């Protein structure tokens, strides 16, 4: 059964599943970008911070769910603080200034998390093993990790919850209004500052989920901050403002990078995963600068 065709599909599916994990991180970026126009480079540091806080609490004997609740509270606090200390004073500054501020925030969070919890790597067990599913291997000859499948399930649930949150709740509607037009939203009496604090808190929650899944897979360590770098080409591909784009972009990047590594890598010395997504995203940009689902902007002069 394990012919080249099923091998191809195995690579494809494992790539798609890995892509879901990228989407999860990209989702955090999109949420904040949509609501406040800030490209939050610190999303990766937030993932790291959340995962490290959680795992350190668990290692100190705190109950799993309690640790989760505490970490969530910490992430919400972090979101509110970020809004107050970093974003509010920079209101009306050019987007690139805010972007650089979030790079500063990245360094601050990396220093803070390691300063508090130490720099040593931690293992994280959330009860799902990262091993192939035997029944699937028996039937199709494809080796797919049950952890990947579990992670995709979580991501799917998260995306559904977020979509419902945006569509059905009052806060969600306010968020969408803010995303459309800040001034107009202010004019109809939506408290912008609260909305931004909320959206940063939600992004913190997404970071926690991503941090747990990524941490469980790779261990909780400094390298987790690089996950954000994987999410950037996803954003370019999917557009900064589209949740659907983050999902589809993640899938495309995940699948193509795995396929490239397996089928192209051997010819060029391997390790092309580090840059392939970027080059793919760049090539794509040349044809569609606004991304897959982004809106085309007309410069008015």
């Amino acid at each position: 059964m394990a012919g080249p065709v099923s091998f191809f599909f195995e690579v494809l599916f494992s790539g798609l599943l890995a892509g879901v994990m990228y989407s999860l991180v990209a989702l955090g970026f999109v949420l904040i970008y949509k609501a406040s126009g800030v490209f939050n480079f610190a999303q990766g540091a937030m993932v790291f911070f959340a995962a490290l806080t959680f795992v350190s609490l668990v290692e100190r004997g705190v109950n799993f769910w309690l640790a989760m609740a505490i970490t969530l509270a910490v992430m919400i606090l972090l979101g509110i603080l970020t809004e107050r200390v970093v974003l509010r004073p920079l209101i009306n500054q050019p987007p690139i200034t805010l972007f650089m501020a979030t790079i500063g925030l990245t360094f601050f969070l990396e220093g803070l998390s390691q300063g508090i919890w130490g720099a040593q790597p931690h293992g994280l067990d959330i009860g799902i093993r990262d091993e192939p599913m035997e029944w699937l291997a028996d039937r199709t000859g494809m080796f797919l990790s049950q952890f990947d499948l579990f992670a995709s399930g979580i991501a799917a649930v998260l995306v559904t919850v977020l979509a419902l949150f945006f569509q059905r709740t009052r806060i969600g509607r306010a968020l969408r209004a803010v995303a459309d037009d800040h001034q107009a939203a202010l004019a109809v009496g939506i408290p912008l500052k609260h909305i931004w604090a909320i959206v940063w808190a939600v992004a913190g929650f997404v970071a926690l989920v991503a941090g747990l899944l990524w941490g469980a897979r790779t261990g909780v360590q400094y390298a987790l901050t690089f996950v954000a770098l994987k999410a950037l080409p996803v954003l370019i591909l999917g557009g900064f403002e589209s949740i659907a784009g983050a999902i589809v972009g993640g899938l495309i990047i995940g699948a193509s990078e795995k396929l490239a590594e397996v089928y192209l890598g051997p010819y060029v010395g391997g390790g092309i995963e580090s840059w392939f997504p970027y080059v793919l995203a760049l090539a794509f940009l040349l044809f569609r600068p606004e991304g897959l689902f982004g809106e085309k902007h007309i410069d008015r002069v």
Partner: protein
Amino acid sequence: MLYREAGQFRATYAEDQQIFPLRQDRIGVAALLVFAFVVIPLVGDQYWLSAILTPFLIFALAALGLNILTGYAGQLSLGTAAFMAVGAFATYNFVLRVPGIPILVAFVLAGICAALVGIAFGLPSLRIKGFYLAVATLAAQFFVLWAIQRIGWITNYSASGVITAQNYSILGIPIDTPVSKYVLTLSIVTVLALLAKNLARSETGRAFMAVRDMDVAASVIGIPLMRTKLLAFAISSFYCGVAGALYAYTYLGTVEPEAFNLDLSFRILFMIIIGGVGSVLGSFLGAAFIVLLPIVLNYVVPPVSEATGIEISHAIISNLELMIFGGLIIFFLIVEPHGLARLWQIGKEKLRLWPFPH
């Protein structure tokens, strides 16, 4: 009373367009150059020369390169270290493969190689802006390092890509002591800084700033966006490339590709944010700040730790450093977006009025 422009009349446009129109500034710069070229080599000890001053000058040059692109032309780049890597490894290959090549020629050629790579990765800037472009420059960062690590020819098939700078001399004088390396670095950085200052005050600099401030308006008055942006990438990368070459040849001696990682790119970005975006002087101030901060921390923290009885480990100091860097970036962006250079300027303006501030 010292810093007065009263009585210094600029009667011609030529006088008004000098590089340093104020007499006090000219004297100040001359004094600084004499101090840097004569006094420091005489009195500076080895540690200061090779561990602080030389890297400071190299980082200032790289920051200047990034400032040309980001500060003047308004194109944010996160791939500075990659262009430095091109400069370092290109120099290595020119010296290795072209027998008898003068080292300065190798530096210039390496800078040109970096400029070409810069142009290649600057091409997306024609279609994309802002953080899309910033992300695109990350492609340069990852791709260039990957290429250097994987293509054995570039590192002459050395294990794990480490290269060791060959011995070299200029006009028969071997450059092998901290003093000679410092003076070489200083000479190159001084010349390139003056050239940058000239560029900034002439048509090229104005075109860069015009593209930065409003690209539609720039093209409406006939500034070709494509050529201007690519020129900014090329000049910027040239500076970064030479800085990278110096990084290998006058500072570290032995470098691996990983030395030019994303973290270095960020550090150089921090230098221009703290020092002053769009300022030649700011590049130097920012580099000094980032080079000195860890050293100051290492001096300051242990006594504090003893005095308060709190044990502060080395790991905590390095994390503290990250937090201070990050915090300062945010602080400067909020409080003084034009950085230390602007504070310096404000100080000078105050000095003009001193001691009668009204």
